[in-house]
């Protein structure tokens, strides 16, 4: 169980020596509680403190790494059931499957397509993460050869998929240095699979579509057999079952500190005859509800932008302030003669101001200036909404093309930036709007006319 800042503080020397780099022992303790610092920063920590904090610091869900190099995939180490309680840390890894019966050139093309999926969005590159190689040939040599080739030629980590340990072994051997994941240990094969995973030091997926208690027993046995990096695949026959199993596994790991369920999870989709939209709707659920890896046996190019955007959304840190894009918004259907107002990109500010403008019946342009998601006064107080900056940004956004007049309305609370804005926007008249959004309709009617 996680300790609170004060509980940790009581284990520290309380000398406020600053050797850890923080102002006080309490400040350091609060950072430790938030997992934003490590105890070894404190050279004076007692053995008792190290022991207690060390135990508390063991993540309830193990961090598992698949692959090596820049495209290495990291999953697990989640700490909450609901993203608003903290954040979800390691985004669902998407795996695309291919088979060893495909001709080599088709495999090459699929790999290049998978590698090519890369959407830039909100400062991040959205990509798919893994390749899942299915063995349909039944030929261990062919399978190993294909695996080796993919492993050599692509930086994408591999999931080697077969229930037959004998068939898998040469393939695992061929690319063990690239740390592929073995998929999957089952009731029938688990001993050999465990042996394989342990001897090559690679992660192992554990599949049981029966009851959770069966999966739990299986995972326990494999754990006892000495495999540390597991990924669990519970049954997901229906969306309700997927939701139930994923929820109960995470809950057991976080709330009961259940070691056998303290691993990332996996969902495999698209193996049946469902259409791609139905597969996508199941993937949506898997991304929202705790799946660490989703293997797609069926996929279409158009699925990726929506699914990867969804993943980005769900794995965004919810404690960042809600922001809107810094662009010029049309409220109603404004023309070149319509009023132009400016405010910050804090979403609540935007919603309130735009609602009032809309309600006023006067269409207008609302220019949103980037201010780290802070409200008007806060942004200005922090030096992020000064007259010079706002003026410069407005010109960069192209306000001169949007409106034919040369007037811009600023929030009444920061009337003080009027002068600086006039300097930054030569030829423009800076009007001071009302302090309260509720007064905007009256202001637009009285002042703008």
């Amino acid at each position, binding site marked *: 169980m996680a300790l609170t*800042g004060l509980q940790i503080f009581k284990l520290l020397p309380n000398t406020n020596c600053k050797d850890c780099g923080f102002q006080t022992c309490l400040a350091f303790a609060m950072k430790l509680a938030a997992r934003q610092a490590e105890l070894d920063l404190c050279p004076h920590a007692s053995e008792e403190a190290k022991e207690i904090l060390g135990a508390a610091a063991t993540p309830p869900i193990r961090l598992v790494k698949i692959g090596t190099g820049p495209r290495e995939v990291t999953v697990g180490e989640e700490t909450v059931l609901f993203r608003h309680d903290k954040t979800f840390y390691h985004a669902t890894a998407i795996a695309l499957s291919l088979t060893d019966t495909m001709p080599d050139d088709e495999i090459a093309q699929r790999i290049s397509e998978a590698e090519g999926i890369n959407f830039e969005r909100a400062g991040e590159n959205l990509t798919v993460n893994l390749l899942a190689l299915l063995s349909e040939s039944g030929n261990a040599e062919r399978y190993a050869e294909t695996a080796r080739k993919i492993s050599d030629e692509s930086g994408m980590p591999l999931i080697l998929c077969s229930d037959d340990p004998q068939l898998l072994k040469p393939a695992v051997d061929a690319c063990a240095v690239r740390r592929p994941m073995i998929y999957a240990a089952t009731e029938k094969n688990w001993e050999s699979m465990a042996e394989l995973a342990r001897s090559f030091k690679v992660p192992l997926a554990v599949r049981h579509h029966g009851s959770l208690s069966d999966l739990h027993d299986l995972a326990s046995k494999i754990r006892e057999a000495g495999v540390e990096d597991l990924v669990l695949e519970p049954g997901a026959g229906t969306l309700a079952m997927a939701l139930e199993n994923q929820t109960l596994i995470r809950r057991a790991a976080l709330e009961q500190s259940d070691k056998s369920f303290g691993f990332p999870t996996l969902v495999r989709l698209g193996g049946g005859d469902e259409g791609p939209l139905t597969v996508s709707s199941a993937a949506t659920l898997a991304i929202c509800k705790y799946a660490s890896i989703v293997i797609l046996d069926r996929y279409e190019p158009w699925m990726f932008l929506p699914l990867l955007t969804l993943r980005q959304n769900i794995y965004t840190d919810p404690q960042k302030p809600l922001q809107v894009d810094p662009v010029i918004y049309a409220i109603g259907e404004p023309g070149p003669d319509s009023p132009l107002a400016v405010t910050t990109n804090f979403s609540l500010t935007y919603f309130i101001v735009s609602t009032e403008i809309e309600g006023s019946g006067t269409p207008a342009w609302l220019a949103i200036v980037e201010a780290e998601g802070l409200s008007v006064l806060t942004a200005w107080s922090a030096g992020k909404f000064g007259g010079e900056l706002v003026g410069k940004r407005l010109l960069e956004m192209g306000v001169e093309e949007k409106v034919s007049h040369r007037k811009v309305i600023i929030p009444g609370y920061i009337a*003080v930036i009027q002068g600086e804005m006039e300097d930054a926007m030569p030829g423009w008249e800076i009007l001071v709007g009302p302090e309260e959004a509720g007064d905007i309709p009256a202001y637009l009617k009285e002042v703008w006319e």
Partner: protein
Amino acid sequence: MFQCSSPSAIYHLQFTGVCIIARSTKHIEKALMKTHLVIFQPGGLEVRVEAGTRIYDAALKAGLRLITLCGGKEKCGRCKVRVLGGTVRPALHTHLSQGEIDTGYCLACATAVDDDLVVEIPREMEVASTAGTQALLSMAEILETARALRGRERATGREGEGERTREGEGARAKGRAGNLGLALDIGTTVVAGALFDLNERELLAEAAAENLQAAHGADIVHRINFAKKGGGLRNLQHLGLETVEGIVGDLLATAGESIASILAVTAAGNTTMTHLLLGMDPAWIQTDSLPPSGVEVPQPEALESGIPAHPSAGLWVSPWVGNYLGGDITAGVLFTRMWNEEPLTLYVDLGTNGEIVLGNREWMAGCACSCGPAFEGSGVSCGVRAAGGAIDRVEINSTAGGVLYRTIGKEKPNGICGSGLLDVLAQLRQAGLVDQRGKFITDRLNASGASGRVQGRPAFVVAPAEHAAHGADIVVTQRDLEHLIRSKGAAFAGIRTLLKNLDISPDQIQRVVIAGGFGRSLDIPNAIAIGMLPDLPLERFSYIGNGSLKGAVLALLWEDFRDRIADIARKITYVDLSTTPGYMDEFVASLFLPHTDLGLFPSVK
């Protein structure tokens, strides 16, 4: 040196005259002029009045207004007090029983002071300070605090340290005309100062004035932005010193002393005010929560700082914790004794910048929030500083359809100060004239008999034009209410966020100490009713008035307290709300009367 081990012993000694003798000869002279010392309990405020003064007026002079219905005209019987020490001749009165007279009760408005007295004001009696005309400091309170703190230090093995300092001071002062000390509270809006005789530890004079820097911005941020401009910093420093000069001038005139007698100066203020006073660049305050390395509180000679004092006088400046948690709060924390005691204490200093510290002798954590100037009667339509003529208490009687208000100094009202504004908000809600968002419910407002209009919009009239000093309605508008709700919301959200960060539930707080813009006239039940302060039993709350100045006084009179304040500044863990997740959430939740989570305010109906 006389040491009194408990407050009751002090009064006893003062009554037997021993303490008076131990005090300065000035006191003896005053005693010969047929004046009497009156000490009010609880709180220990003391005042010297001429023989024949009514206890009621003595209380007023001490800064305590006994709330009556008749205004002290012997009609209502509300000002019943009990004399614990000294002799009075209580007049028989319909409102007093013989039993009460036998146990020392009398009516304050009907009883003259003819002896040194200790007067107990019963707990249930409503008392308000006469802010503006009130005394900033009570020597008894300062001595009591110092003794409590130093007694504790002695018990914890710091024996003697303070005494040596004290003796050193005395020796240094020998052969000089005067050995005076100046304590300053450098507030963003108001600067206050007090002059002491260091040898006798006697308060000679106190004074306050508006900070002349206000011409360049009402709050910290405006000042910093102004300081960034060419020559701005020097300009602000100059205005700050000019303010201090004015105050020192007043103090010296009152005490009949000269600048050369001031041999020591202590000053406490928020981080920005401290920077501006010393001419330091405040730019980091906007960008960093903790000072960059190299930025430390200098301790210059008073003269080189520009503060009027003897050329060799040292200036001690109270150290800050972080950008918005300043030397005013560290000085105040010293005064609260929380840093030296077990009970978990919440110290809340509410001004334009709200500062909050939670903790006890083991640990302390603090944060700051921007409350806006409404608490200090600024930034709202009819807001005024708490001085003569300010409406400081308001009661809305919804059934009788009336508004009762009280002004400071019984003058005609000229506006509403912070405590009055909070009363209005609480009472409007209680009377059902505003909804939980603080929005006027128009038809009820119109039916209330106190509705008015400002620029065509509804407003609540606290005092009609014909009663006001300046002949215009004194009103509270919708916008004013929104300001107030944001101010109280910011304060409460700061408290909640700090508690949450430390996993502490409100009921674990054993003491809540309030300081700042409200002074003693803050009505705690009303402040809870609007959701500004946590809903805890009233007996856990106490007030210390200007905590910053009181801390500066302790540091002036006992030099070893300066190290304690430095320890306090080092010990407080600064929680920067601007980067703390959840503060905005708490703030939005607090923009409701009393709060979106009504469960936090079980006592508010």
